Every structure is written in structure tokens, then in C-alpha cells.
């Protein structure tokens, strides 16, 4: 293994014919030129001298008529000299040195522990708002101040602890417990009809039922009263509640045009690439010739993850632009019918239509569109609680 100091300052291997060995060694001894690793191989003598010593020895050899066969340079100065035109290497070396110097002075990662309801992203956003984020200088982090800020401004965090370990901030939180809101139930209320329908039944009703099964009621009609005239004790009040089932008719119409605007992608996608470094971005690539207004934008960021050590604060952001245009397209009649039924199903699911007693469907092609009409008779709870105020 070579001495690193010798490599650092560089040296030369001088080779000459063995017949000159005594003269060369005498010159080294007489003039005090230090050498090392002297050896003899195939009638040649070689020895290693420092750069300065080589220059002196060569001068003396020329003066004394000694022919030197070769001078082979070694060491760091020779290495640097041989790469002197590789400016990129020099710039890279400077950048690497700067990065190594700076990397120990910024926050690389924030690790969260203790979150239950809150997502990690929400906690990180809260911390960022209170002054803690990846990429900030370590000497500007005041854990006590940030902790206090988070507890004051965040309703979701009741306790927080921030510990700096090297370039990583370990954050432990305890979320605040939210009590369920008590539903304020009215003291006096009636049940009225939320929709028109034919009364079909009652379930767990409290109050005075004012309708009977088979009655047709309209929206707003009184179904169950919370006020009772007891004739002997006067009026008594209660909050009427329960379920009143009725047969309800719902009508829906779905209109599917045969000609429609279809989104078509133009096939050529453009992209821009950015290097993301501690929150800062530098654009490194773009092939967008002209910006189109109509395009889908897909924005992704991939952070480096080395040896499963977690995400590192640098990565590549790719923004893809996929242009499209709307073109008129035609659908077949079968396609229109299928789509109409599909949309009708979606409407029924959204409205919560179940317990269907009867369903009438009718469809026709009219004016370049397919119209599907649905008349559904179903049984549902139409009772709606309405609070009433009692004065006195």
C-alpha cells in the first residue's frame, strides 16, 4: 500500500542502464537527493524520487553525461495534470465538496410519530406552516418556538415534541380528542310528510298518529302530532318521532344524445423535467415547442430512496402535457340505450331508491337523442321531524 503523503505530493520513477548505477547513486549521495525503492531489473536500475529531486537529478545526469532511459510520473499532481482539460471533473469535484459541506447544515428529513387521525402529509403541512420544513438551515431551527406555535395554531395537536438528531427531525405528536357533538333534539315536534304518497305502515312511532294506512298524503301533511289534548289534563307535548312508510312514486328521465363531443388525444405528449433539491426546483429539460391550451397535465415527483433508508430530499419532478381536442362523435342506438340504463341506475343509487314495488320504463328516440323515462313506485320512510315552539 502506497504512502498517501508520497502520493499526494507525487514522485517519478527514473530508469537508467545498470552501467550508470554507481554514478547515479553517487550523485544522489553527494548532492543529498533522497530516493526510495531502488531496484535492479534486466540490466536496468530504477529508483523513485520526489518531483523536485527528479529535476535536480536529471540536471546532474545531463551534466555528467548519464543517459536516463525513462522518467515515469506518479501521484496526485500527475493525475491532476492528465485530467487538466476535463473541466467537468473539476466542476464536479467543487460541487461535490460544496454539497458535502452544506449537506450537514440543512434539515434532510422530518419523521412523524404518533399520528392517528391525521395523515403524515397533514402533520408535515402544519409543521411547515409553523416554520419546520425539509431544507431549512439547522441553525435556524428553534424546537421550543416551533412546538409552541404548533400547539397554539393547530386544533388537532394537543402535544408535540421535536428532537433534532443530526440532520433529521423526529416529531412526536399527540392528537387532541374531539368530543362528538351532541345532537340537540327538539322538545316538541311533529312528524310531517316529506313527499306525496300513500301511507303503508308505521314503525316505532311516538306521538299521536293522525293518518291511517291507505291514506293519500301530500308533502307537508301532518302524520304524527306531538301535541295531545288529554281533555282532563290539558295539552301535553312531546317530540314526535318514528318512521312512517308510504308508497312513493318517483319519476326520472335520462337524455342521451346520439351525437356528442368526444375527447381525443392528439398522440404527441410533451414533458418538462425538474431537479427537486430540498424544496427548490431547477428545470433541466423541456421539449414543449408551443403551449397548447387544451391538455391534460400529469405532475409527478419521484424522490430518491437509497437502500430503503427513506425518501431523500431530492428527486425528479416530471410534468407531462398531453394535448387533446374535442371532436364530434356518434354513438349507435344500442350504445345510447345501454348508456341511458346505466345512468338511470346511477340516479337510483344516488337517491337511495330501494324496496321497489313497481317500475315502468319507456324509451324513444326523439330529436337525435334517446330519452328513457322511469316511473318507480317504492316504499320509503317519508316522516320528517318539524320542531314547534310552544309559547307560555
Amino acid at each position, binding site marked *: 500500500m502506497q504512502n498517501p503523503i508520497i502520493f499526494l505530493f507525487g514522485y517519478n520513477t527514473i530508469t537508467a542502464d*545498470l552501467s550508470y*548505477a*554507481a554514478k547515479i*547513486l*553517487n550523485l*544522489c*549521495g553527494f548532492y*543529498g537527493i*533522497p*530516493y526510495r525503492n*531502488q*531496484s*535492479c531489473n534486466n540490466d536496468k*536500475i530504477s529508483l523513485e524520487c520526489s518531483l523536485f529531486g527528479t529535476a535536480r537529478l536529471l540536471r546532474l545526469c545531463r551534466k555528467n553525461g548519464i543517459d536516463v532511459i525513462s522518467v515515469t510520473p506518479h501521484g496526485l499532481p500527475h493525475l491532476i495534470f492528465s485530467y487538466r482539460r476535463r473541466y467537468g471533473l473539476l466542476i464536479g469535484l467543487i460541487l461535490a465538496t460544496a454539497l458535502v459541506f452544506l449537506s450537514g447544515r440543512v434539515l434532510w428529513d422530518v419523521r412523524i410519530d404518533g399520528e392517528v387521525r391525521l395523515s403524515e402529509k397533514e402533520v408535515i403541512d402544519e409543521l411547515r406552516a409553523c416554520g419546520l420544513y425539509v431544507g431549512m438551515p439547522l441553525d435556524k431551527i428553534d424546537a421550543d418556538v416551533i412546538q409552541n406555535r404548533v400547539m397554539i395554531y393547530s386544533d388537532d395537536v394537543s402535544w408535540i415534541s421535536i428532537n433534532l438528531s443530526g440532520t433529521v427531525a423526529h416529531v412526536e405528536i399527540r392528537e387532541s380528542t374531539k368530543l362528538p357533538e351532541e345532537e340537540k333534539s327538539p322538545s316538541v315536534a311533529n312528524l310531517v310528510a316529506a313527499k306525496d304518497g300513500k301511507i303503508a305502515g308505521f314503525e316505532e312511532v311516538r306521538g299521536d298518529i293522525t293518518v291511517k294506512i291507505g291514506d293519500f298524503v301530500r308533502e307537508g301533511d301532518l302524520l304524527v302530532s306531538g301535541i295531545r289534548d288529554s281533555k282532563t289534563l290539558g295539552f301535553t307535548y312531546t317530540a314526535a318521532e318514528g318512521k312512517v312508510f308510504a308508497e312513493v312514486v318517483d319519476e326520472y328521465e335520462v337524455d342521451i344524445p346520439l351525437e356528442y363531443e368526444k375527447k381525443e388525444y392528439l398522440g404527441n405528449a410533451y414533458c418538462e423535467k425538474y431537479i427537486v433539491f430540498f424544496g427548490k426546483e431547477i428545470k433541466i429539460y423541456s421539449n414543449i415547442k408551443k403551449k397548447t391550451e387544451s391538455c391534460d397535465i400529469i405532475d409527478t415527483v419521484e424522490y430518491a430512496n437509497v437502500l430503503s433508508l427513506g425518501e431523500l430530499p431530492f428527486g425528479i419532478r416530471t410534468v407531462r402535457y398531453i394535448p387533446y381536442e374535442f371532436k364530434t362523435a356518434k354513438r349507435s342506438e344500442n350504445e345510447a340505450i345501454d348508456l341511458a340504463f346505466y345512468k338511470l341506475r346511477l340516479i337510483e343509487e344516488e337517491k337511495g331508491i330501494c324496496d321497489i314495488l313497481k317500475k315502468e320504463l319507456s324509451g324513444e328516440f326523439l330529436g337525435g337523442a334517446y330519452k328513457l323515462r322511469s316511473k318507480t313506485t317504492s316504499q320509503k320512510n317519508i316522516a320528517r321531524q318539524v320542531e314547534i315552539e310552544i309559547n307560555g
Partner: protein
Amino acid sequence: MKQKKNETGQSLVEKINKTLDISPEALPGGTLISISGRQSIKVEGRVKILLYSPDKIVLALGKETLTVIGKRLLCSAYHGKDITLEGYIYLVSFEGDTV
């Protein structure tokens, strides 16, 4: 220094050395030779290489010569007045007459 010899054949320098018990190498022109096993010889004093080869090295020590015969002989260090020879030494001999 031209040495005068007495009747016993000793030079004046040798007589002074013996009387005052001074090491010969301490006087001007003196040479100290140290042999370490069969691998190394160190010569301290005014010395010059007369002949060098991997099998034979001849050193000039003033008016005398020191011949070292061996195998894979190297001059591992040579600065100022000191020289160190390394290798496998068969024979070390002195030539020249100063007595």
C-alpha cells in the same frame, strides 16, 4: 594523514587510539561499518560507490575499498556520508593497505 610507523608496526594514530582508548571512527577519516545479519550493511563515513551491480558492490573508503558480494544487492539509502546496502550478503572484504 600520512602515518608514521613505530618499531612494532603500529601507526601513530593506532598508538593514540590505544593509549587514549578512542574509537577509530571518531578520528578524521574514520569509518563505521555495521553489519546486521546477512541482510544489511551500513557504512558511515566518507564513502563512494566504485562499482554497482546486483551481485557485487565496491565502495571506496578513503584509500581502502570495501567489496560486498551477494545476491540482489541494493543501495537502499545513500545520503551524505552514509550508505546502506541491503540484500543477501555472501562476502565482505577489505582491500588496500594503510598499515
